[in-house]
């Protein structure tokens, strides 16, 4: 099946992604508005990938994590840095590794 791409983020991110061909974009202004938009994207059958900036994800906070826990396999959701390259300290993937591997801290060598 073929799907489209949705982007939620600041104005620069959405503009850039629109130029690259993302079909749906939403500029984050208020939390409520973004949440309802995100919900709409998540329940849509046409959207296969939602990109949203770390900053927005952080601002949505608990509700966002709740949505991520209950979402179906599709659409995929990926958090991306915004134009300042902002990536939070606590990485969701790191968190998961810690939980599954059990408190182990993993040091991976680059380019192996």
């Amino acid at each position, binding site marked *: 099946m073929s799907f489209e791409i949705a982007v939620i983020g600041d104005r*620069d991110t959405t503009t*850039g992604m629109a*130029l*690259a*061909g993302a079909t749906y974009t939403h500029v984050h202004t208020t939390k409520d508005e973004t949440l309802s938009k995100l919900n709409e994207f998540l329940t849509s059958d046409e959207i296969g990938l939602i*990109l949203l900036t770390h900053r927005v994800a952080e601002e949505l906070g608990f509700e966002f994590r709740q949505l991520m826990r209950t979402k179906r396999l599709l659409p*995929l959701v990926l958090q991306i840095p915004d*134009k300042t390259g902002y990536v939070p300290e606590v990485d969701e993937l790191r968190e*998961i590794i810690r939980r599954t591997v059990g408190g182990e801290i993993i040091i991976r060598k680059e380019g192996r």
Partner: protein
Amino acid sequence: MAAVLAVSPTRMELMKLRKRVGLAQRGHDLLREKMDALVMEFFEVLRKIQEVRVRAFEQLLTAHRALTNCLAVMGTLETMQAAREAKRELQLEISTRYVMGIAVPAVEVGEVERNALARQYSLHMTSSALDEASREFERALKFLIELAELNESAFALARELEKTKRRVNALEYILIPRLKEAIKFITMRLDEMERENFTRLKRIKAILEERR
């Protein structure tokens, strides 16, 4: 501890328990193997993520720089206008793939990068800085799509891994020890009964010999 299973100390029960331990042990071994395989798969995906992530985020920063440049050259409103005009119909082909019985998404995407004409914004109103920005963003998007697929796979694997681990631990630390404890309890009880019986017989024999 034996009371946990509340078994009656019979030979029948003992045989049943032995069978159950055997089964639990086999299940445990199988799950263990599954877990090991999952861990290997998981780390493979993590390694890939690390690679793609670095590339994707770097490319995204480059794209943002190009966009900033474009905003400066063309003006904010004009750039946004162009973004609105641009053709925005990138299609992803997503299917599910199964890795050891776990559904992970497989994303396929055609060529993300397009030439300036295919983008369909007005060419004579825009500057080449816009083309540049679009191209960089298209490249970034391609990496990000790849990253999203890997990310989701990692999550699916992690979820399964957690489940498997919990099962392995439940078998290893709860069920099997309890069954073993019950078996021990029954064998001790049976031995004890044997000894009781033995002394009883001895005593009866002694009494009978006295009477004769």
